[in-house]
């Protein structure tokens, strides 16, 4: 039972363009969502988060959008840079409990 899904295993984008990573969830009770970035041989690092009471959160080049009615969130990176190439995981939690992660999307930003 995959409660958090990232249906695209990979994404390739040209440097300077927008990267859009998508995530769907099934549990409408999730109240907090996060995006993590992971480089090879390293642990995931926190990138940006959003509470279920909001529909957008922005931090520099990174913006997360939440559509509760569609149970969908997305991460926008603009402009994309080669250093953004990594695996991106979305995660959801319920009342401060465990984080449930998606399968990840590998982003490749080409110069």
């Amino acid at each position, binding site marked *: 039972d995959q409660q958090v899904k*990232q249906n695209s295993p990979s994404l390739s984008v040209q440097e300077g363009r927008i990267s859009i990573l998508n995530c769907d969830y099934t549990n409408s009770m999730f*109240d*907090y969502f*996060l995006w*993590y970035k992971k480089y090879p*041989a*390293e*642990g*995931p*690092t*926190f990138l940006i*988060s959003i*509470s279920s009471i909001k529909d957008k959160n922005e931090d520099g080049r990174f913006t997360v959008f939440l559509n509760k009615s569609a149970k969908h969130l997305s991460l926008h990176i603009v402009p994309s840079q080669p250093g953004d190439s990594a695996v991106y*995981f979305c*995660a959801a939690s319920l*009342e*401060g*409990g*465990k*984080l*449930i*992660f*998606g*399968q*990840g999307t590998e982003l490749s930003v080409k110069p």
Partner: protein
Amino acid sequence: GAGVSQSPSNKVTEKGKDVELRCDPISGHTALYWYRQSLGQGLEFLIYFQGNSAPDKSGLPSDRFSAERTGGSVSTLTIQRTQQEDSAVYLCASSLEGLYNTEAFFGQGTRLTVV
């Protein structure tokens, strides 16, 4: 320490042997999580501690897996009679307890290879 520390960083063990993986969380973080990532897979939840108790053990794959946490700090994940399918990167994370919105900070992981 400044971050979550895991040891060893790499472990190769023979099938059937027991292994112990250690996690030192960020000081003051009372929530601690274990995840694993198998080759080509996402982050699979294993167990979650609040202080020394584990309110959610639902992710442990079998009774060969166990974890404990002492003093509200260090945690040990033990895998008994290891099997080849246990090969994965085991990740530990910690976060502040009690905050409604909180992110978890991950260690670098322990890469376990069962041969």
